[in-house]
């Protein structure tokens, strides 16, 4: 800025002789044409200025500027409306998102509950089945044990008979006679002594 001023000042200084020369050597009365106030063109210029500036003021204030103001106002309203609509849309989106989240959470909870229930049911069923199976198994084991005991008893009964018969036969061969009752008692005694009663 100072540079510019210095330049302007310097050029003005350089100009002074030229301006002075120009200012004096002039045909129509000399001096600046702007200061020739007795010129009828000067007065006319002012009258026309007033008319033309009045015209400009009328055009601007009555026609042009209200229109510009209207356009600016329309734009301002439009932008405000758009902003409001955008805000509302955002609120709706937020609400939808919240609802969606709640629904997801609810569904998850429900699913978890269903899983837990199904699991519990399955476990109970499995436990029940296992118990029934055990019971049946136990019954079968008991029955089998009973059968084994019966078989053994039968086997033991047969053993006594065979022992008595064998002993009688042996005794009769050795002595020539045999007392059936005494042999049976002796076998009984012997068996008891060996623990096979």
């Amino acid at each position, binding site marked *: 800025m100072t540079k510019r001023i210095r*330049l302007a000042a310097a050029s003005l200084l350089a100009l002074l002789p030229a301006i002075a020369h120009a200012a004096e050597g002039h045909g129509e009365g000399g001096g600046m044409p702007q200061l020739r106030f007795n010129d009828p063109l000067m007065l*006319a*210029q*002012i009258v*026309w200025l007033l008319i033309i*500036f009045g015209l*400009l003021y009328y055009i601007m204030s009555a026609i*042009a500027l209200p229109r510009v103001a209207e356009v*600016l106002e329309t734009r301002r309203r439009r932008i405000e409306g758009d902003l409001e609509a955008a805000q509302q849309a955002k609120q709706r989106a937020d609400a939808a998102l919240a609802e969606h989240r709640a629904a997801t959470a609810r569904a998850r909870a429900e699913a978890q509950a269903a899983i837990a229930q199904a699991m519990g049911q399955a476990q109970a069923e499995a436990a029940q089945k296992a118990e029934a199976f055990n019971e049946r198994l136990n019954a079968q084991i008991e029955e089998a044990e009973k059968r084994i005991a019966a078989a053994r008893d039968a086997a033991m009964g047969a053993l006594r008979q065979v022992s008595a018969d064998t002993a009688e036969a042996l005794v009769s061969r050795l002595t020539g006679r045999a007392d059936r009752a005494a042999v049976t008692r002796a076998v009984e005694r012997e068996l008891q002594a060996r623990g096979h009663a």
Partner: protein
Amino acid sequence: MAAEGKIDALHQFELEPVFGAIGRSVNFTQSNAFMLLAVILLSVLMIWGMSRRAIVPGRLQALAESSYEFVHELATGQIGDEGRRFFPFIFSLFMFILLGNLLGLIPYSFTFTSHIAVTFVLAAIVFVLVTIVGLVIHGWHFFTYFFPQGAPKLLAPLIIPIEVISYLSRVVSLSVRLFANMVAGHVMLIVFSTFVVMIGSAGVIGIFGAALPLLVTSVLYAFELLVAFLQAYVFAILTAIYLHDAVHLH
């Protein structure tokens, strides 16, 4: 212009009737023709430029809108809310002077703001408007403007004449500032551009010698574009400040 080696820097300010016999009969000069051109260009800009009323403005509409908003900001910023009532006046004044200054920078055109009579009448319109606004709003109380509150009564004989003179000299300062800036700029422009022609006609050396004044002319022209805007702005903002004083009294 460089007739017989003389520089006629002031011929450009000469008033000449235009539009033939009709123009001569009503003394319609080229100065008035450029005023009319300014009004036509402004109307084209502000009415035709805005005619599409687009939400997203085109170039011309953006120009019209930004000039509207620029001056509106200036008016309401300086005067306050009451500035809206004076906005059309300040807008007309600013754009009229701006276009006068800018049109004057087109070669062979005429700068109507380089006439003291024109700038003085514009300043006088401002002065009369400011005074009327002050009187209408404040009545007789308006004259307390010339004596600041709290000043010692003893100094009244000194302060009041000073304030009145400074109030009256607004017309002179407002008009002379614009007039002098425009005249000085255009005289310098024509002198340097005449140098280019004079030196340039002096053979081969002259062509190189003419480079310097040509450069100066170019720089000056750019500077004058700035001045054209600045002086219109100064005129408008001072008008707004004076209106603020009239509306608010200090």
